[in-house]
């Protein structure tokens, strides 16, 4: 038990003998939730996760003697939580449209009964992470109940039936095991063995999948100025990527964006199973006007939940929008603690905190005897002030992530979406993923990708020249590059997030579209080589059609490609044939 001696915004200092760093405390009459972040003698500095208005010197503080933790078990999926895992729907029931302080709600539904089906048998020996049984939590996801940390030995008893999460489902060497476990949010839960990534997180977004792919278990950053479409990209990834579980952390962003997700996701169907996407999603919403300390916690809360599902052997993707707001929360608390500031007022430990967060991603073997594999992919958006990519949060993020999707306000102004700049972006996973792509799509897919990138970078260089001396100064070969790369940009890279067909392309479709565009390039070169003018290329019947390819439905794509391809080849053949006859 302690007493407050100072209140400054979200920071409270209290005389609290026996407090441990990282422990959760209850502050004041309303029992606001806080966490000890610094100790000096008997004085504890506490960040409070709720508004501190009205707290007085002398108010009581009680330590719970446990670190800030999340509760993990059936009931997580399709939930919407605040930054410290309080369900927002229950808060609304308790306190109405506006969030009142000191609301106490249960993190998981304690009354609901889940049907537990044992996997482990009585008499079997289990270790930490072994799957004891499963609960079909939603029609999309089977929730695996794992032996929690510290539990191992012989299964004395295990039974099938409908239980609440607090009801013991098994007894392992004398210890009762329930379906719920607690994990502190600031502790990483490592994989048993991390491995190199081998499979791609397919997102259906052409510029991402084809040009700058991300691996399952990888990390990516999306920096960009406001209005460049960071959040739309994050939403598209949450909707369409082929992860088993999606954790979406809205960290210090707009309230209406979370509402959008909440209203839209239940309507969206999983492309493979036709089940609502919400059934594989956990939302964490700590909007910009909610307390800043909880914003700092929200990212870690998300990561801990993500790791839990990864431990079951699932492919999990975590989207954090935006990590800059999280960094700002660190900065504010650091300032209130009167720490020595680093760059732009951010604390000196910004880099290590960011690195530690992204390092929670990975692919490999989970705990448990069955050597199942899971992955956690982390995609963070960054909101640099003034779009300046040299600022500390972007720079420290780029040092740890392997994929960089740089958003460009110029593209956004021209309404080219996704506004990912193809010159400055990169992916370091291409080599790892090449076998996968060749296997899944086509032998020449990786080559096609390289050719496209080369074409685009050539265009960039030529643009410089055009700007100085005009289009006329270019050779016909160079004009061909401009012609085709324009088509790459407008007919392939441009993708509408709102058109029902265009918003998602399979890898196959991406391959076919690109193949058609590049075939124009190859044929164009042949035509020019024969001494024909550039205008002839524009006369190819299909050239006019290019803009429509992206609207061809998935199941008709292969047929479409074959017909178009043979038509182009035929026309070019007869064109070239005509020339050689004349000669």
């Amino acid at each position, binding site marked *: 038990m302690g007493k407050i*001696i*100072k*209140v*400054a*915004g979200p920071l409270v*200092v209290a005389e609290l003998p026996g407090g441990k760093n990282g422990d959760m405390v209850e502050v004041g009459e309303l029992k606001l939730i806080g966490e000890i972040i610094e100790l000096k003698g008997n004085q504890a500095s506490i960040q409070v996760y709720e508004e501190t*208005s*009205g*707290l*007085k*010197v*002398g108010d009581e503080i009680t330590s719970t003697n446990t670190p800030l933790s999340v509760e993990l078990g059936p009931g997580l999926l399709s939930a*919407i939580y605040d930054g410290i895992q309080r369900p*927002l729907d229950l*808060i609304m029931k308790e*306190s*109405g*449209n*506006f*969030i009142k302080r000191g609301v106490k709600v249960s993190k998981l539904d304690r009354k609901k009964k889940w049907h537990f089906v044992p996997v482990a048998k009585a008499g079997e020996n289990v270790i930490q992470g072994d799957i004891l049984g499963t609960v079909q939590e939603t029609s999309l996801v089977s929730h695996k109940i794992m032996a929690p940390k510290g539990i191992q030995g012989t299964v004395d008893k295990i039974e099938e039936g409908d239980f609440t999460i607090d009801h013991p489902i098994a007894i392992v060497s004398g210890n009762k095991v329930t379906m719920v476990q607690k994990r502190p949010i600031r502790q990483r839960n490592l994989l048993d063995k991390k491995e190199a990534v081998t499979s791609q997180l397919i997102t259906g977004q052409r510029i991402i999948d084809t040009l700058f792919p991300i691996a399952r278990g990888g990390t990516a950053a999306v920096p960009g*100025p*406001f*209005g460049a479409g960071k959040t739309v990209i994050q939403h598209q990834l949450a909707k369409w990527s082929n992860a088993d579980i999606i954790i979406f952390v809205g960290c*210090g962003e*707009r*309230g*209406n964006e*979370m*509402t*959008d997700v*909440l209203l839209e996701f239940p309507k969206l169907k999983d492309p493979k199973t036709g089940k609502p996407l919400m059934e594989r999603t956990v939302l964490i919403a700590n*909007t*910009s*006007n909610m307390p*800043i300390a909880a914003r700092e916690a929200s990212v870690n809360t998300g990561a801990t939940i993500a790791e839990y599902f990864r431990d079951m052997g699932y492919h999990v993707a975590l989207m954090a929008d935006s990590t800059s707001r999280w960094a700002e929360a660190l*900065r*504010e608390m650091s*300032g209130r603690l009167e720490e020595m*500031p680093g760059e*732009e*007022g951010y604390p000196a430990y910004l880099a290590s905190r960011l690195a530690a967060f992204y390092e929670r991603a990975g692919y490999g073997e989970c705990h448990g005897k069955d050597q199942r594999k899971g992955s956690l992919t982390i995609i963070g958006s960054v*909101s640099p*002030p*003034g779009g300046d990519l040299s600022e500390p949060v972007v720079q420290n993020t780029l040092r740890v992530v392997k994929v960089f999707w740089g958003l460009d*306000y110029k593209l956004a*102004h*021209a*309404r*080219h979406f996704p506004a990912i700049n193809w010159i400055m972006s990169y992916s370091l996973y291409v080599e790892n993923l090449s076998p996968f792509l060749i296997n899944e799509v086509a032998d020449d897919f990786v080559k096609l990708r390289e050719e496209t990138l080369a074409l685009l970078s050539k265009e960039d260089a030529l643009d410089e020249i*055009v*700007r*100085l*001396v*005009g*289009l*006329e100064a270019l050779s016909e070969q160079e004009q061909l590059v401009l012609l085709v790369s324009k088509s790459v940009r*407008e007919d392939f890279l441009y993708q509408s997030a*709102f058109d029902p067909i265009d918003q998602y392309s399979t890898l196959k479709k991406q391959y076919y579209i690109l193949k058609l565009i590049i075939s124009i390039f190859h044929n164009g070169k042949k035509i020019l080589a024969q001494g024909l003018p550039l205008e002839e290329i524009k006369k190819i019947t299909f050239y*006019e059609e290019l803009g429509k390819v992206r*609207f061809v439905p998935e199941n008709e794509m292969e047929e479409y490609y074959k017909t178009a391809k043979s038509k182009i080849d035929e026309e070019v053949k007869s064109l070239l044939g005509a020339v050689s006859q004349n000669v």
Partner: protein
Amino acid sequence: MYEIKEISGPLVLVGGCSGVGFDELVLIELKNQEKRNGRVLEVHNDLALVQVFEGTQGLDTKSLKITFRGKGLELGVSPDLLGRIFSGLGKPIDNAPEIIPEKKADINGATINPYARNYPNDFIQTGISTIDGLITLTRGQKLPIFSASGLPHSRIAAQIARQAHVKNKSDSFAVVFGAMGITFEEADFFITNFKKTGAIENTTMFINLASDPAIERIATPRVALTCAEYLAFDLNMHVLVILTDMTNYCESLREVSAARFEVPGRRGYPGYLYTDLATIYERAGRLKDKEGSITLIPVLTMPGDDKTHPIPDLTGYITEGQIILDRSLERKGIYPPIDPLPSLSRLRDKAIGIGKTREDHPSVANQLFAAYAKGREVRELVVVIGEGALSETDKKYMEFAEQFEMRFIEQGEEENRSIVDTLNLGWELLSILPRTELKRIKDEIFQKYAKKS
């Protein structure tokens, strides 16, 4: 007995306190009976740091009578708020009596639970083509105007307030106007404008002029929004809130921060500027179980026309888009000088199209954007290589950009265009370009709506 330890800038350090709560309201009485309001910024042992809204000019360390009120700053609300003019702290300044409050509401409000929100997707017709067609405003949206000194943001804001309405609906509509540190002329422009059109009946104004205490401005937007929340969520009205000028608000915030020796963020503004602005802007919105809504149009002037200055920058990260005014358009004599390219409404796509405006709206808007962007690019090119070197298509783009500015962006201050007129005008302009260039428009839409030339 309280003891004044220190008076510096807008702050007063009070000693000998006990039981003083963080963020509570403080009443300060001077010897001459003058009363001032303050707010507790920090409590530490027996010390309380108080920010004085009316400034510390004339305060001394000996004779002040200090009362801690045990609660935050409140606004008394009642339907009588409409048609009235108040100071930045909510005191009547229109020579009419104080209102008799129905209830008192804390000006800091409370956070809307994201789960309780309803998505803003009702199209608001402002009668301004650039906004309706391209940067669509919706009910419950927060859409700022990024202006700069000398640009007609006040006229645009007043035009929106006058003309804004929702199609086929006769809901009760109100305007709440919060002025922070603007000049008397500007304030007078709005008052006269609202009076002339009769809109004053449904308007509540909170006015802090440039000559009023600077620290009072920190409370003004909150007071205005508290009034708006009452009108929207208690009286089920659709409320349009105009806050001008947010730059002055941020300056005051910086003043307090500097007086506290806080570690500054960019350009001396406090590190928590983003969070502080969010607690204002995020009060806009709609709720699932309430009729009313709060649509927020903050106006700010960009220092040095710089969009990357912390105030517009952080605002843009919170609001759902921005309307950016452009000096070069203004110089060409175009009103309203809204540059559509950097402007944006994030909520547009869910508020337009079939059943909302017209099915061709999304395609037309996207195509207009793309074509105007291209036209501007060509225009830049011409500066370097001359018009002669342009291809035929590029020349058409040039002409398009020209026409687009003169006919689509340009319109009268009293001109109220319907969305159908705006879209038809868009098609007329697009007909300048060949069909092959209109890649954002699908065939069926083109055939149905395109102007045959």
